[in-house]
């Protein structure tokens, strides 16, 4: 029943998407506006199909329908409700189903947003592209295809299943991190589709770009939240005290984030000065391609990773899709690229556009470094057959200077005017940010921070924070609470979030400490200035697991319960850390080993992680800032971007006017 429901849903979506592609293709080639109108209706069928399929899957999971292979392999009767629901995206096939659902939501949103322009060929091509992407993903789930979530078990139907991977049923964040990530990942399909539409129709002006900027921002915001939640999940669950390991799958989510971030900055140069068009288009196309490549890395098992789903025949399919996508877009750029070339050029490197250009160079370099580190093992293996891993040292060494340079830009760029800055103007505008940077540096030294890289990071963070706050103060002083919304001001809130994350990241990388203590019940030890008292353990039995929970008092205050859990079907014990979260540092406790004898000593791991809580707070800032940036600012957006220098206009704009124009959408 559930399988029939699900398969029917997938089939409906697949057929509707295919019908959409065909109808649009005919309508566009033969110029039949009625067909273009009609095609938009198929998005509803795609959505209905996806909803039915998801309902079938959730129903199967909730009713323990073990006749479905997916349920039999990844769920159990004893799995708690939340994790039964979340199991839909806990393994390969279900995660593609979530992908399909999110994609169909974006399709509907596209049609609703552009319902007045359904006859516009540019929109038609964009919708066709999005439908084609949907055909691929629903095709993957069709009956007998490699990611069919509704395949039935062969032979006898089992009475119970093994349940999800223990790591995926041990923290509620599991229910939120993947959907957020997918909302981001899949959301890049929309700007990608519009970019393809613009290339095909040859209408390469800025119009479509203004339309889709906010879509990119939305996807970017979700992706940022998804990445931060993923880091949080790994901190709370994996028990090694860290939150980011440059794992291939983490990199896979980070790569499109980098290119999308670059785009969100450089698109302003295009809107304002009409420059960097090929580049912007390439960034959008690259972002989407990287999401597909990332999916390939995650799903094909081609790279070693803690996240990798086991190898499945889906790999070659996704790789083929990736090849089709990149070759199509490269072909389109080759065809249209010369029409895109921009009319202007940058007058002075010390200008807003110069800073954006530098920003883009840095982000591109960052993405290249991360991509190289991710695929380097494959290159080496192809060359001489050796299996190597590229570890943290590579990523730390390569990305630290890039991160520091980006912080510096973040400090200087927001105060730079367009076109050209005079030294005098810069020195007046940079006084307060520079003072904030110096104060941050002095303060960190006084508080005992040492080491070149972290001190540079803290100083520059103060500097950059100063710049962002200066901008927000100027804007709110002028416009009241309106000064917090609009692209530039929201962007400054995002900057603050990123700065907070950068500081927390640098601090925890540089000053995190780890020790293990062996304690008998009632015994205490002082570790890095914290008094750790072990008070014995409780043996607990939950429906889905049994656990040994140590009771550990930190500094005579609250009791924390790091645990070791055993799940039926999984002999390996899973550690659950317990964290004393603080404003300045976390005391991160893990139960390393315990025996069943209550009197015996246990080994407790103690991790001191400074400022980690600020990573999540910074993530919150990013989310709020993105939201603020999505709200249109007070000024309407410019309909005609300035693309050629107008005599007399390239003198520096006086400060107040400049800030107002930034406050809008300009």
């Amino acid at each position, binding site marked *: 029943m559930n399988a029939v429901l699900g398969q029917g849903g997938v089939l409906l979506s697949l057929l509707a998407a295919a019908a959409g592609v065909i109808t649009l293709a005919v309508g566009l080639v033969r110029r039949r506006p009625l067909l273009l109108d009609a095609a938009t209706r198929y998005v509803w069928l795609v959505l209905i199909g996806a909803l039915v399929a998801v309902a079938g899957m959730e129903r199967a999971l909730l009713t323990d329908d073990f006749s479905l292979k997916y349920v039999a392999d990844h769920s159990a009767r004893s799995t708690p409700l939340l994790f039964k629901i979340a199991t839909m995206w806990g393994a390969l096939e279900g995660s593609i189903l979530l992908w399909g659902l999110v994609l169909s939501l974006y399709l509907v949103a596209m049609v609703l947003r552009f319902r007045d322009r359904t006859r516009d060929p540019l929109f038609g091509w964009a919708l066709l592209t999005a439908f084609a992407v949907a055909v691929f993903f629903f095709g993957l789930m069709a009956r007998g295809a490699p990611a069919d979530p509704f395949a039935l078990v062969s032979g006898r139907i089992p009475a119970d299943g093994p349940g999800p991977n223990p790591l995926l049923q041990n923290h509620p964040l599991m229910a939120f991190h993947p959907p957020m990530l997918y909302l981001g990942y899949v959301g890049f399909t929309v700007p990608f589709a519009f970019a393809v539409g613009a290339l095909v129709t040859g209408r390469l002006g800025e119009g479509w770009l203004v339309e889709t900027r906010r879509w990119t921002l939305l996807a970017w915001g979700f992706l940022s939240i998804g990445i931060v939640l993923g880091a949080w999940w790994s901190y709370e669950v994996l028990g090694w005290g860290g939150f980011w390991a440059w794992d291939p799958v983490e990199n896979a989510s980070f790569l499109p984030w980098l290119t999308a971030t670059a785009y969100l900055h450089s698109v302003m140069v295009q809107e304002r000065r009409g420059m960097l068009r090929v580049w912007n288009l390439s960034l959008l196309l690259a972002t989407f391609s990287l999401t597909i490549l990332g999916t390939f890395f995650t799903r094909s098992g081609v790279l070693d990773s803690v996240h990798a789903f086991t190898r499945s025949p889906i790999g070659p399919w996704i*790789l083929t899709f990736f090849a089709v996508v990149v070759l199509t877009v*490269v072909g389109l*750029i*080759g065809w249209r*690229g010369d029409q895109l070339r921009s*009319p202007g050029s940058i007058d002075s490197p010390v200008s807003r556009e110069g800073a954006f250009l530098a920003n883009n160079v840095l982000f591109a370099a960052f993405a290249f470094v991360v991509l190289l580190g991710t695929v380097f093992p*494959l290159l080496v293996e192809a060359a001489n057959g050796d299996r190597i891993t590229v570890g943290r040292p590579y990523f730390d060494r390569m990305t630290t200077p890039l991160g520091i340079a980006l912080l510096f830009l973040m400090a200087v760029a927001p105060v730079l005017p367009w076109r050209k800055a005079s030294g005098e103007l810069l020195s007046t505008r940079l006084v307060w940010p520079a003072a904030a940077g110096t104060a941050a540096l002095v303060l960190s030294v006084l508080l005992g921070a040492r080491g070149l890289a972290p001190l540079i990071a803290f100083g520059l963070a103060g500097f950059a924070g100063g710049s962002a706050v200066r901008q927000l103060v100027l804007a709110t002083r002028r416009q009241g609470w309106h000064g917090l919304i609009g692209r530039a001001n929201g962007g400054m809130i995002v900057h603050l979030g990123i700065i907070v994350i950068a500081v927390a990241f640098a601090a925890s990388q540089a000053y995190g400490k780890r020790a293990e203590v062996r304690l008998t019940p009632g015994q205490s030890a002082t570790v890095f200035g914290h008094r750790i008292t072990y008070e014995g353990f409780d043996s607990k039995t939950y429906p889905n697991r049994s656990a040994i929970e140590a009771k550990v008092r930190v500094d005579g205050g609250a009791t924390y319960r790091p645990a070791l859990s055993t799940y039926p079907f999984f*002999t390996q014990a899973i550690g659950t850390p317990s964290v004393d979260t603080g404003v300045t540092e976390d005391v991160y406790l893990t139960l390393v080993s315990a025996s069943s004898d209550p009197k015996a000593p246990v080994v407790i791991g103690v991790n001191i992680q400074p400022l980690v809580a600020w990573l999540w707070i910074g993530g919150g800032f990013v989310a709020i800032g993105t939201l603020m940036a999505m709200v249109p600012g007070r000024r309407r957006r410019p309909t005609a971007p*300035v*693309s050629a220098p107008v005599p007399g206009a390239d003198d520096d704009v006086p400060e107040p006017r400049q800030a107002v124009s930034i406050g809008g959408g300009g």
Partner: protein
Amino acid sequence: MTSTIDARPEPAEPSGAPDRRRPRVAPWVALGLAVVLVGFVALLYTRKGADSTVAPSPLIGKPAPEVTGPGLDGSTVRLSAYQGRYVLLNFFASWCVPCRNEHDDLLKFTARHQAAGDAQVLAVIFDDDPATVRTWFQKNGGTWPVIEDPNGKVSLDFGVRGPPESFLIAPDGTVLTRIIGEVDANVLESLVAQAKKLGAGS
């Protein structure tokens, strides 16, 4: 800086009329990019898949649980009989696709260590019919001992969730590494070499 004024948001540009003063470079750039990307995709296509994931296990660093059981040839196979050699305890089923994929690597590994006699593969059947496995080995080669494990006791002792899964065991019987998924002959070599260098368990 030739400036074509192009300020309208949706200019109906005459297509295919590039500015004469500018040579057409986009097709060449695109061609170069396409070549690089084709190479990249070809590289990814030909990768076998690094499915072998070294995974944590509570057994690592501890003496391996004793493994005894009827072998496919009727004799009794004991893990302890192989002390003094590195043992790769390989959980196997003929129905498991990755197990078939890794078979060549196991053959290679065995061949490399045959002369020195310093390493040995031991297979444990995971949920499979011994007769099927026997035919399978006859067809595909592989002369290492295969333990039947009819009640799944060995799999339980080692916490094996599903084949293929392998444990590298030191000459003194200490568990060194747990590998989930397909093994790779080169990775096994480097694991053994690393263990020898550290003098672990010898």
